[in-house]
């Protein structure tokens, strides 16, 4: 019910959140002006010289940036595909598990890596795949030569994608398991009566039943096409693998905060933000159209 004197309280309730957003999300957005300037920290944003689109033109001329963009898309798309397929397979296997008693403990454990930070997981991964680590010892036992896993440009992208899937697949399974539970049980019985075996039932009953969920997750991950995961890569990479491992976010960090090329880094960051927002908006629009999903 509409009560006029309450409306002012509604505004008051919004104040803390709006203040936070204003000072820490909106104000930094004005810093985007730097992308169109030759920013000089000594002069500040108000007095730096405007250079129009020079930074953007320069950005697309740098072979560096083109390589970084390609790396970002390859890694991000690899992660998106892997993070949809692997949890799906895992959820199906888990659903077919005959020992119901161990289902719960398995779920509990596979969620764990998702909640640990990349700082910690990267240290562990680097140790395990390290030059004297367990993996190399295993290789040596079987007569192979030691491999400097995180020093090989060719191995870096698969390792990044693989470890990302390892961290997230348990967590990503939750959504699929919920969807599988939602499939009408009588359909399985009907299929069995019609003579469908186990795999046929998975293929003709379970899969169609969770098709919408898979489609939804795929559409919503559209916004991540330029998001290759800063935390992970920053903690795993080193100069030996910059050629395949450097992504937009790590490049922006090094260019902007380490080499103090504020304007160029802001321009590249802005480029990424704008493309991402467009992709996310398209994703939500498509999700709404095809599956009826609404964010709010």
């Amino acid at each position, binding site marked *: *019910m*509409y*009560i006029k004197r*309450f*409306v002012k*309280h*509604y505004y008051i*309730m919004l104040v*803390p*959140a709006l203040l936070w*957003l204003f000072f820490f*999300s*909106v104000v*930094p*957005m*004005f810093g*985007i002006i*730097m992308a169109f300037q030759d920013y000089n*920290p000594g002069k500040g944003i108000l007095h730096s010289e405007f250079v129009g689109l020079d930074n953007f033109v320069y950005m697309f001329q740098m072979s560096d940036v083109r390589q970084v963009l390609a790396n970002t898309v390859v890694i991000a798309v690899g992660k998106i595909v892997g993070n949809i397929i692997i949890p799906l397979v*895992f959820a199906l*296997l888990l659903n*077919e598990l*005959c020992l119901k008693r161990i289902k719960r403990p*398995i779920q*509990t454990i*596979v969620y*764990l890596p998702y*909640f*640990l*930070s990349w*700082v910690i997981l990267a240290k*562990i*991964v680097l*140790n*395990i795949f*390290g*030059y004297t680590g367990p993996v190399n010892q295993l290789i040596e036992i079987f007569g192979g030569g030691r491999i*400097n896993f995180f020093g090989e440009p060719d191995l870096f992208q698969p390792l990044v994608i693989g470890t990302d899937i*390892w961290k997230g697949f348990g967590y990503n399974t*939750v959504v699929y398991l919920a969807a599988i539970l939602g499939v009408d049980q009588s359909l399985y*019985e009907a299929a*069995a009566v019609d003579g469908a*075996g186990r795999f046929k039932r998975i293929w003709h009953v379970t899969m169609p039943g969770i098709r919408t969920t898979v489609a939804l997750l795929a559409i919503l991950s559209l916004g991540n096409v330029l998001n290759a995961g800063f*935390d992970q890569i*920053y*903690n795993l990479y*080193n*100069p*030996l693998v910059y050629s395949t491992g450097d992504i937009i*976010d790590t490049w*922006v960090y090094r260019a*902007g*905060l380490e080499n103090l090329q504020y304007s160029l*880094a802001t321009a590249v*960051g802005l480029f990424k*933000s704008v493309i*991402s927002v467009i992709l996310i908006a398209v994703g939500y629009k498509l999700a709404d159209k095809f599956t*009826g*999903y609404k*964010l709010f």
Partner: protein
Amino acid sequence: MIENRSMGSKIFDAVNVVILILITLVCILPVWYVLCVSLSSREAVNAGQVALWPVGFNLLSYQKIMGESDFFGSFLVSIKRVVLGTVVSMVCILMAAYPLSRTKKQFPKRDVFMWIFVFCMLFSGGTVPWYVTMKNYGLMDSVWGLVLGMGLHVFNVILAVNFFKNLPVELEEACFVDGGGPWRCLITVYVPLAKPMVATIVLFTIVSYWNEFFQGMVLSTRQSSYPLQTYIQQMVVTLDYSSMNVDQIAQAMKLNNLSLDAAKIFIAMIPVLIVYPFLQKYFVSGITLGSVKG
């Protein structure tokens, strides 16, 4: 369900159990490995003898940590950050979610504010403008920089809005009839009813503040203001691998006390391992909450 177990089906069952157990082990192994390394002697670790079981079992690494005031300083910074961050976040999220979950009739400007929130969620100025802003605010080396710099997590606001929207409207009406206003309705009716949602958001907020390292790194000008994750991240002196050959890398590795590092990493995992069982209980419902339709 249907019991129709053929031979092939039984073989599949057996293989399935083995595969799932192996996958599960792959998820727990890293934690186990860190624990083993931290409990092994430094020599055994550097010689690469430790894999799945502690070699030369001892607690020296943990004793050594007791003397490292830097480590505990960072631990304290992280605790402060998590506590302040969670309290501030929850107050902002719950207060904002209530008006945003009202109907357009009750709160005519609702949609305008909703779009402001969503815009802030989707678009950001990027790392460099954010950093310049934080610097201008004078929030370097300050725990408030670490708390507020993370920004309001708008997705959590939307989660809370969706939850509030699905509560029966009669509850609110009853509260108003009893003479209560929006504040009383939020605090005495809505928040207590939203326990699973609040728990989910609290736990996710704790984990995200605890795990954040990047802002801790760029907002700190001295080591004493590092949160724990940043401390861990900076722990091993950054080596320039490009100028080293393989033997030199191995040599440099030997100089590090890997056992001590592992003990620090293990301690940094403990808070997450503690909140994890609670998370586990709520986050399944929490994730599905996100897809509630309005």
